[in-house]
């Protein structure tokens, strides 16, 4: 009888001192989130629609602690100057908190490279296109007046004198160059990379505008490593950030037969790679 009582007390003791804490520990442990490495994809140009989408994802990554690092996966020729700068500045805020790694898929040209330059590490595939650092702008027409259009100043219609427009573009370029210098440091030779040339991934690694040849998986692993996490979960940030429906305006022009052309629909200032189309008139 005493033996039975003793066993019963032992069981209670073990339950109290071992099993119960273990269960509590397991419950608490289960509340430790699996780290997330988020992917922000950009498979388009950078313009108001895509920029707002990216910024929402960036904000989500900043506000949610389970997102320990972010990978930017690019296949983008760049885009408008203002939207690129907008995303870049938001990215720097995120970067102050969490590691960011770039994976260049098809292309990270011009404005897309602007965004890449501020990240911790850049992977490119051997034939990804990387670079094209610089700004493109269309000078306004020579100021003139029209009988049927009344404006209140010589540049109301045209925005700016042609000469000052040109100089503004050069100043904008300086911002781009500074961003690249800050991001890439001594890995690049400014005399080479600021020519505006675009390189394939292999060359991009040789001249320091990318760090290594690799894929999105490499980028995810690198981001996890920089964040100090493992056994992480990969999540497309677009799904998490639940981006709202936004008005969409086509960025690229279309030919008469409906094909998308690499030229923007509107004149303006761009950090954009515009490839030549064979045979395009």
């Amino acid at each position, binding site marked *: 009888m005493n033996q039975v009582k003793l066993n019963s007390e032992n069981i209670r003791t073990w339950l109290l001192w071992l099993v119960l804490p273990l269960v509590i520990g397991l419950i608490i442990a289960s509340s430790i989130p699996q780290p997330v490495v988020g992917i922000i994809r950009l498979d388009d140009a950078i313009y108001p629609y895509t920029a707002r989408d990216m910024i929402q994802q960036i904000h989500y990554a900043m506000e949610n602690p389970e997102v320990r690092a972010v990978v930017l996966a690019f296949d983008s020729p760049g885009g408008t100057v203002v939207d690129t700068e907008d995303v870049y500045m938001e990215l720097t805020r995120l970067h102050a908190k969490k590691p960011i790694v770039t994976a260049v898929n098809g292309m990270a040209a011009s404005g897309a490279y602007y965004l890449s330059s501020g990240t911790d590490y850049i992977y490119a595939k051997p034939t990804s296109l990387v670079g094209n650092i610089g700004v493109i702008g269309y000078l306004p027409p020579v100021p003139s007046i029209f009988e049927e259009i009344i404006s209140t100043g010589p540049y109301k219609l045209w925005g700016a004198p042609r000469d000052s427009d040109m100089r503004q573009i050069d100043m904008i370029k300086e911002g781009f160059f500074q961003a690249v210098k800050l991001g890439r440091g001594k890995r690049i030779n400014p005399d080479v990379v600021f020519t505006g040339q675009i390189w394939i991934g292999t060359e991009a690694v040789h001249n320091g505008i990318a760090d290594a040849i690799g894929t999105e998986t490499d980028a995810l692993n690198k981001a996890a490593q920089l964040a*100090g996490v493992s056994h992480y979960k990969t999540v497309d940030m677009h799904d998490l950030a639940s981006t709202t429906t936004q008005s969409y305006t086509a960025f690229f022009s279309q030919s008469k037969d409906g094909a998308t052309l690499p030229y923007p629909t509107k004149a303006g200032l761009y950090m954009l790679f515009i490839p030549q189309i064979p045979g395009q*008139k």
Partner: protein
Amino acid sequence: MKKNMLWIAIAALLVPILARGLWFYHGFPHQPKIATPDYQNMIVSSPPLETPNPVADKDTKQLSGLALFDFAHTNQYQPSEIQSLNEAIEKRGGKAESITDTTLLENKLKYASAYIVISPSAAFTTDETRIVQSFVERGGRLIVFADATRGLISYDFNSGAAINNPDSNAANPLLSPYGITVNNDYLYNLKKHEGNFRNVFFDSFGKNELTFGLKQVALYGTHSIKSTAGLILLRGDESTLSSIDDAHDPAEGGAALSENGNVLAFGDFTFLSSPYKNVADNATLIANIADFALGSKQVISLANFPYIFKQPVVQVYPSSKVQLTAETIAAISSLQTSLRSTDTSIEIVKEAPSDGDALILGTFTTSDDLLKFTDPFNIDLDKSTETISVKNLGDIGRIGNGLLLFEKNKKGNTLTLLADTQENLVSLLNTVSSGSLSGCVLQDNIGVCSIGSGSSFSGDSGTTSESTSTAEPTKIEATPTAAG
């Protein structure tokens, strides 16, 4: 016992937490120092201030002369873009005229001081090139402005592929005889530039009047100019590179002058336009170009006819053996009409002119008043022979031929017309009145025109005939400046 159990409990609590935590997290996140571009302190560059022109207005040379602007080769410019050069030319007493019809080129270059070709797209024909070369050989000045931002783009009919036709293609055949080449490139400088990498500063200059007073000029999208024997006028620094090979070539620059000093080539003409004409020393450069354009010393010979007179009035003197018949008067009137288009009028005088421009009418019959006009040419008008011996032209038959003798001196230019008879003199006058000597054989300042049947002469080698020229207009174009 209880103490041991407590440790066990703590361990049981922590192990799963630590296990899961360490499973996922095993270090601190990488925290790089974040820096962003200093956007707020970026400033838009300003153009370099215009530097004073060392030549004050009151010291501007008064040169006169005509600058003939080519507008017949699909030239890619608007007159408003070169207004500064026109103004500089006019300020010096010169005139600017454009030519849209190449058939008039030869005639117009007879009296032009400079032929200025800007960004041509259509090719110059062999004949046009020959005419321009002849003009340069006579001392005329050829100025070619190309521009890397101009040129025409055409499209292949089948593939639709763009075909670039830079202005260097049309400019080079004009320049190559003088060892100058416009490269199909543009110069750029990523380190030091005027607002954009393609706007290049030049602060090293070839020593020449064209670069007088220059410390720094800026060209805006310029081809590089190469000269084998001439002088590179505008040289960029070592960071000025050519788009062809992204390299610096000290033997190339933004402008070059030929070895003979009469052919000038620029890779850009945007610097002539506002507001770039006032940047740095560009205004001084434009003034120097105007001086160069009007500083031509074109050698006037019979080939320049009818632009061979300098004065507004030409004195017509019928020598003592010539009668002013109705036919002669009619021929002189016809000549008056022709010369009026060159802003020259004629006046019949009774005394042999001793100064001023003059047209002397005579026959092959020797007379005292005619001698002073024929003697300088060593012509033997001896009646006993059937031919007249003319230096360099040989023996010329008296019958059916007319002689033109052109003499230049400081007091004025004189053209003497001689024929065997009064009737043939009228024929010779009519030939001259046509405004063209294309039917005559010209040798320096002596010409022989066939004015009737039975004419013949046995000429020496080395004669030139205007009849080989093409598209000679029968009407004299209206531009009034007679060169001298």
